[in-house]
């Protein structure tokens, strides 16, 4: 058992309580004031801010094989569609640990295949601590991840194979979904990992998460999702502000693209305010480059919104509870709430207010994974 005492707890609905968090078996057991637990390890968080751990929504870190850059494990492009692949077989806990994400307040992340294939595989949500995918697991399968991007066209054009156009991508996506549907209706069906993954999407057990940039990408994906009645998460959406009504009407959740990466926001003229205004109607969170990012980037994306005039408490939601909602794991992570994983980051100061704020202690699933010298302990 662990007891965090007297911290400024950033609770759901932007409530801040100076109080205690009791942790047992990796989960939050109780929140209150004046809690005691004989024998528990005690962390003194007096004068410190306790936030739910930040969530990096979509990344290929952990799958990239940085020791051997030329043959990473994130981008299977032997064919354009292989939704049955699963990140759990490629996730390298050592590579994740190398990033020291706990120093950036990040306690969990959505691990996803990279951007080369149209239907790239199944993604899960994992903790930043642990040696194996099993140990790191928050939720093994949260979505089938795909890409409706020029990257896909470029990959297969270079092989003189389909799809090399947007028409080709749309037709192939429809074909995959239609065939999976037919397979689902067969009586004695043969095992097929790709169709089995798409069955989860077609029955709305999990959403389809698509990387999209332009209006054309977004419109095509929404049209196909509607035809097959799918749940949809749109990632990137740099031109989404131009078709806001279409997105809202489709019911898709939205993960904002990285605001700094390769100048994409500037290139596409993204109206971040307009995208964030969709929060009234649908789930929206902030994200980072879906390739590799360091421990700093998620917080930078958050800080930029504060620079633009957003309130720190609203921005905090966009990288914790709202991210968890988008990924469908808000019953597991994203808030300081009884029953959820004890994923907590204790800051000296508020990093969305002061640049000098730094991590004091990071707790992942009830385990201290980082403690600053002289940090919370008694």
């Amino acid at each position, binding site marked *: 058992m662990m007891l965090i005492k007297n911290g400024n707890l950033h609770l759901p609905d932007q409530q801040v309580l100076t109080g205690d968090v009791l942790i047992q078996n990796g989960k939050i057991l109780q929140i209150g004031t004046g809690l005691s637990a004989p024998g528990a390890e005690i962390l003194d968080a007096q004068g410190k801010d306790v936030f739910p751990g930040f969530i990096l929504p979509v990344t290929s*870190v952990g799958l*990239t094989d*940085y*020791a051997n*850059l030329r043959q990473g494990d994130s981008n299977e492009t032997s064919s354009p569609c292989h939704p049955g692949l699963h990140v759990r077989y490629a996730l390298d806990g050592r*590579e994740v640990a*190398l*990033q*020291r994400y706990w120093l950036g307040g990040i306690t969990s992340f959505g691990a996803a295949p990279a951007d080369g294939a149209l239907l790239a595989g199944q993604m899960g949500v994992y903790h930043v601590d642990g040696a194996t995918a099993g140990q790191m697991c928050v939720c093994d399968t949260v979505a089938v991840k795909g890409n409706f991007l020029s990257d896909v066209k470029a990959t297969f054009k270079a092989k003189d194979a389909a799809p090399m156009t947007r028409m080709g991508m749309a037709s192939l996506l429809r074909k995959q979904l239609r065939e999976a549907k037919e397979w689902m209706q067969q009586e004695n069906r043969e095992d097929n990992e790709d169709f089995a993954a798409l069955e989860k999407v077609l029955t709305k057990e999990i959403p389809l998460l698509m990387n999209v940039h332009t209006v054309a990408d977004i419109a095509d994906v929404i049209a196909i999702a509607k035809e097959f009645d799918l749940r949809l998460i749109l990632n990137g959406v740099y031109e989404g502000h131009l078709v806001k009504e279409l997105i809202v009407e489709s019911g898709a959740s939205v993960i904002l693209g990285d*605001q*700094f*990466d*390769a*100048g*994409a*926001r*500037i*290139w596409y*003229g993204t109206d971040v*305010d307009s995208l964030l205004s969709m929060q009234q109607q649908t789930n929206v969170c902030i994200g980072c480059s879906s390739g*590799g*990012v*360091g421990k*700093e*980037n998620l917080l*930078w994306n958050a*800080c*930029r919104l*504060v*620079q*633009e*005039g957003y309130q*720190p408490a609203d921005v905090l939601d966009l990288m914790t509870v709202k991210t968890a909602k988008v990924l469908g794991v808000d019953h597991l992570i994203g808030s300081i709430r009884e029953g959820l994983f004890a994923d907590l980051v204790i800051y000296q100061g508020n*990093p*969305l*207010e*002061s*640049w*000098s*704020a*730094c991590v004091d202690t990071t707790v992942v699933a009830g385990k201290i994974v980082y403690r600053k010298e002289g940090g919370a302990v008694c």
Partner: protein
Amino acid sequence: MLIRNATILDMTGAAPYTGDILIRDGKIAAIGCDLPAQDQQVLDASGLWALPGFVDAHTHQGGFDMIDQNGMDLNEMTDPVTPQVCAIDGCNPLDKNFRSVPAAGVTTLCITPGSGNVICGQAFVAKSVGNDIHKMTIKNPSALKIALGMNPKGAYGPKGRKPMTRMGIASVLMETFAKADQYRKEKQKAQLEGTQPPKYDEKYEAMLPALEGQIPLKIHCEQFDMLTAIELAKKYHCRLTIEHAWLAKEFLEELSESGADINYGPVGVPTGYGELTGADLIDVKLLDERGVNVSIISDSPILSEEVLLIQAGEAVRCGVSPERALRMITINPAKALGVSERVGSLEVGKDGDVVLFSAMPTRDVAAKLCYTIIEGSVVYTAPERS
């Protein structure tokens, strides 16, 4: 232009003070209290912080089109030795990312060839606003860009051409410098003795300003490649700026002794092994404490220009004081680029390049850039928010 009643942090080392800044003919004509307004444009800066416009010592603005790969104009990867190519000739100031630079508070930037070659070409320094890159330029060439490690290996290794290894890179570098230095000596001798100079060589000619100490070598390196860079600069008595410098914390003594300027960053990249280790702004704190002239760089547009200030904030998180962190994006890079007589601090006689913030930008995250002023003209005004 007269900027009225700002909290001025001039980056000369003085504590912040309240005052006015008068800019005439593009230059700072006076700084003081209650300066008389004549017929200038007056900007009421009450409650705002006035700082010198930021200086980014390492960018590829206007030459790396990250979305449309047809616009990749700063990496001539057809020959590992291309000192004769000039970044200014590959730079398009109408590029969208370049256009966004003033909105990041950056008024002066060094634009350098990429790192695909061992000797990559000539870098230059320009102001961040204009349609004619030549008119915007304040120093050209400003440095001879060189690259060690993964980038040139990655460009030539797969082709089976030298250099495929770090050994190959060092060999290309040492051999080229030896020949260029020989060329320099022969040319000098011919001039003294009135004899026939050596046959004109565009590559060696392009290396003369660096060999004669007029401009520094600007060497892309991380980890122990820094020692190769120091060895080369020492051997040919060249000035040196070390670019990126990840893992500098392991070479503090050598770096400090070398007298090199360090242009550090960017961070916000995944960590791997070898060269992909140690991108952490804790390094700038350690270098600064040793008295090294250290700057933070954006490497824009690989990351957008705004990460210059954001990284200065991140340096504060790593323990650098807010004032020292601001030096790393103003006066320190101005010195490293050899343009500190014009930019980098607010002093009478220097260029009227000023940024006005709603609060101290390396202390308060919410500090908002309100105006960017270059040579007395407002080039960016923050949009009104609904």
